């Protein structure tokens, strides 16, 4: 058992703080509390460390890697939604100009292709044009099979079964309390059916990699959210050919968007390495836009029947939902969490089934299942509020509760004030002109807690005062690199630009998380702090030796190292570092979870939306969103604000525009491009006010929580409630296209 020490910290959030005392291992720092006295973290806007590289085009993404003598690869994919694959004849393709290798995907002959876009073969050639030409010459025999393209066609009696076990899974149920009693106790009951669409991730950098072999060692520059997991998986894929983890390297210095769709080596990534091995030359294999749309991930559609029961005063007594999730031809999907976690209710039951269709499989998409469930519960709550003749904000405020680390009542109240809810709210359907405004609100929850033991960070402190922190994590554009520098700089009292951050390379050999689940910051930040804190203590020992005092008498701030007991004793950071001489200080830090009961309740938040509906054209315009979010302790302020705005914008685009359209005649995606698959642009971007709430939570030593996902969850729901408020009738499916708005109006007003 390690030696422990007692630490104290001021935790909680504005208006609800408390000083706690707890124990941490003797060599580790206590948690950053509200009383820490931050100079940089959450205080200053620090430019992104890689900002200049990004604005000058110097930043090299996987797609930009051009290796000497490199080949380009193109794919052959199945054009049919459902087909038995026969013989694959590559002989003509092999004779095409510039072609160096044509490879079938393993065991493809005889396989059943479950969607249009199924992988058949790949061609490597001198140029991408030659590779594409040759790919068209690969002759494939197909036997077309009947297909299903949406949940209704998949569930009809005549539907062909597209997988063993059928198209629909057994219902799975999550329960709390007694749902029947909950409805018996209810004085008011409402019900409704809500639908959310399929969104494709549409990362601007498509999926893929450059693969290169040298002396039996493999390097891939892979557009991935997890350098370690890719390197590991590549080693496994080629283990029978002598590759092991010491010889498998993945580099991702910059990455053009992932949003949950870029984990693992991918079959086509392994194919790139295979082609490189066969040809003895580096190979670039990046998906084209069509391929990326159909095979590289999507957010499952959902159809939710929701029934709520409440007392006349608005107190919820029962939440019931029966949900169909539609994840493509495989993969999982679940939407139940918002029904359970957003509001207090003693009796909850959610039943879910997956319905499989002939489409590419779902992948994690920014808070998997949560925006869908959020749309279901929040839209239903507004219908309940209407029936109760209650302000929907008041209804929500009545059904949330807080604690020292759970700030949702505070966040709702703060958001309502910032938004001006009282001034803006009118009863549903009050407005009657052509342009009708409406407001809505919704809450959010995400665990955001990080993985104890999930990261090892190395800190190197050199005699010239420079500092490096290193970890096998990667920066997807979240500002992770900058966040790490800020944590180190805050701890050492130096400027972030003096901290070098080494990430995005599996060969650093330091355990790091794949970036998903908003876990990167809460996993890596505490490990950075731990490593840097230990390095600092070692430096303090050198300084103490010089000043003939003890290390715990030394501190540092604003580039100065000083004695706490004798104000005459101080020296510049560089001067102190010079005491190290040749003995570079190298320390390792890990994420250690504090032993504090109740810590780590996750991150809540609340959002408020104002919309304007043109009742003649059916166009919905989002005017403003106020997003209030528990971010733990804000670290990289500018980058955190940007991520919040970005999450909200992805919510707006999901509410208004994005929708994968499947053709009922062919089973193919009709809009597998960025022309017909609509994504929000500058013209439709609303005013967004991000409000970060620091909730100091000893879940880890940096009070760090993840931020990528939680602010994306409630946006579409808040917009949906605002649209219902404007029209006086709900539109129960997103995206809110003009035809749906006009149909809802016609139904209501004739």
């Amino acid at each position: 058992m390690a030696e422990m020490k007692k630490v104290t910290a001021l935790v909680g959030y504005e208006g609800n703080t408390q000083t706690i005392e707890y124990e941490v291992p003797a060599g580790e720092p206590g948690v950053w509390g509200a009383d820490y006295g931050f100079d940089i973290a959450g205080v200053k806007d620090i430019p992104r460390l890689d900002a200049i590289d990004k604005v000058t085009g110097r930043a090299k993404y996987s797609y930009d890697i051009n290796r000497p003598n490199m080949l380009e690869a193109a794919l052959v994919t199945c054009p049919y939604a459902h087909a038995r694959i026969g013989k694959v004849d590559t002989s003509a393709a092999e004779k095409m100009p510039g072609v160096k290798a044509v490879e079938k995907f393993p065991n493809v002959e005889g396989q059943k292709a479950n969607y249009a876009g199924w992988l058949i073969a790949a061609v490597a050639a001198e140029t991408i044009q030659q590779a594409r030409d040759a790919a068209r010459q690969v002759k494939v025999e197909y036997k077309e099979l009947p297909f299903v393209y949406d949940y209704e066609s998949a569930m009809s009696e005549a539907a062909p079964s597209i997988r063993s076990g059928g198209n629909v899974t057994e219902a799975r149920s999550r329960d709390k309390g007694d749902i029947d009693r909950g409805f018996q106790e209810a004085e008011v009951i409402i019900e409704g059916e809500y639908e959310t669409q399929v969104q494709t991730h549409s990362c601007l950098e498509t999926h893929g990699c450059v693969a290169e072999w040298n002396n039996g060692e493999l390097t891939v520059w892979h557009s991935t959210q997890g350098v370690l997991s890719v390197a590991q998986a590549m080693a496994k894929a080629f283990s029978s050919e002598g590759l092991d983890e010491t010889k498998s390297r993945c580099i991702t210095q910059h990455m053009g968007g992932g949003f949950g769709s870029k984990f693992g080596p991918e079959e086509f990534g392994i194919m790139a390495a295979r082609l490189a091995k066969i040809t003895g030359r580096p190979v670039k294999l990046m998906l084209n836009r069509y391929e990326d749309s159909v095979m590289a991930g999507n957010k499952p559609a959902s159809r939710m029947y929701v029934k709520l029961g409440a007392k006349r005063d608005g107190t919820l007594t029962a939440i019931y939902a029966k949900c169909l999730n539609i994840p493509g031809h495989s993969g999982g999907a679940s939407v139940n969490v918002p029904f359970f976690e957003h509001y207090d209710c003693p009796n909850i039951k959610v039943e879910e089934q997956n319905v499989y269709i002939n489409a590419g499989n779902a992948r994690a998409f920014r808070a998997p299942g949560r925006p869908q469930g959020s749309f279901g519960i929040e839209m239903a709550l507004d219908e309940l509020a209407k029936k109760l003749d209650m302000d929907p904000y008041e209804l929500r405020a009545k059904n949330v509760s807080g604690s020292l680390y759970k700030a949702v009542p505070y966040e709702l109240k703060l958001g309502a004030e910032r938004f001006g809810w009282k001034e803006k709210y009118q009863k549903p359907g009050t407005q009657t002109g052509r342009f009708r405004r409406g407001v809505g609100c919704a809450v959010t929850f995400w665990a955001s807690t990080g993985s104890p033991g999930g990261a090892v960070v190395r800190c190197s402190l050199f005699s010239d005062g420079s500092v490096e922190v290193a970890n096998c994590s990667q920066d997807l554009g979240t500002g992770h690199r900058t966040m790490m520098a800020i944590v180190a700089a805050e701890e050492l009292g130096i400027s972030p630009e003096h901290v070098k951050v080494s990430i995005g390379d599996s060969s650093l050999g330091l355990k790091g998380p794949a970036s998903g689940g908003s876990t990167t910051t809460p996993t890596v930040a505490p490990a950075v702090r731990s490593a840097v804190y230990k390095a600092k203590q070692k430096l303090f020992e050198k300084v103490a030796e010089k000043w003939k005092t003890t290390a715990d008498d030394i501190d540092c701030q604003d580039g100065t190292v000083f004695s706490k007991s004798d104000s005459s004793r101080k020296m510049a950071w560089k001067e102190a570092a010079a005491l190290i001489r040749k003995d570079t200080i190298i320390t390792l830090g890990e994420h250690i979870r504090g032993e504090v009961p109740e810590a780590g309740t996750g991150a809540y938040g609340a959002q408020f939306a104002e919309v304007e509906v043109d009742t003649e054209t059916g166009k919905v315009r989002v005017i403003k969103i106020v997003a209030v979010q528990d971010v733990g302790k804000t670290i990289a302020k500018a980058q955190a604000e940007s991520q919040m705005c970005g999450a909200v914008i992805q919510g707006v685009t999901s509410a208004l525009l994005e929708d994968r359209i499947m053709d009922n005649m062919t089973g193919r995606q009709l809009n597998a491009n960025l022309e017909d698959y609509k994504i929000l642009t500058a013209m439709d971007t609303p005013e967004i006010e991000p409000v970060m709430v620091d909730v100091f939570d000893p879940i880890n030593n940096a009070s760090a929580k993840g931020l990528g996902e939680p602010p994306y969850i409630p946006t579409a729901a808040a917009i949906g409630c605002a649209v219902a408020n404007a029209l006086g009738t709900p539109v129960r499916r997103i995206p809110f296209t003009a035809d749906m708005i006009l149909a809802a109006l016609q139904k209501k007003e004739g």
Partner: protein
Amino acid sequence: MSEHNVGTEKRGFSRRLFLKGVGSGVVSASAVTTVLPALEQSAAAASSGSEVLGPGPVPVRLQINGVEHSLEVEPRETLLEVMRNRLDITGPKLVCDMGSCGACTVHVDGKPAYSCMLLAIQVQGKKITTVEGLAQGDQLHPVQQAFVDTDAMQCGFCTPGFVMSMAAVFAHNPKASLEEVKQGIAGNICRCGTYSQIFEAAELLRKRNGG
């Protein structure tokens, strides 16, 4: 018509026009373009017996960022492909490959253009500037500096395109209003959703220019 497409559409035989000609009929929410006059030009060029090149490689001379490049390319290769695959100029990004997203935006004789919509053979003799050619040595272009100062990027894959589009707006009007900037960047998509920060960059720049 957005600022964006002026450079490409008037040239007569861009891929975008060809695609439009065969007719998806769907126009993007952001980049609404007028097709007809240019199509007529294209038809006129065809009937006057233009030179037929290819399909094999042909020599081209390209002036990019002040450097003259002489090389052989297939006539079907886009400017974007030639820059990225043959010249290692990778600032302009390949994203949609059909003129929908703006990530490949460059300046052709000072006007913004989608380089995925231009064939390399058609921009010979023109002055092409990519995001790599915007800064003067270590001195960032004012638009680049404004992007850095307002953190107007996340993953950064769209950033070169946005920088080029906005640089064209401010070259035209150094005190461009936010509304003008929005029009000028309407043909660019940012998937991470950094529009709010890009607006801040535009406002900062307008103020720095005395606007």
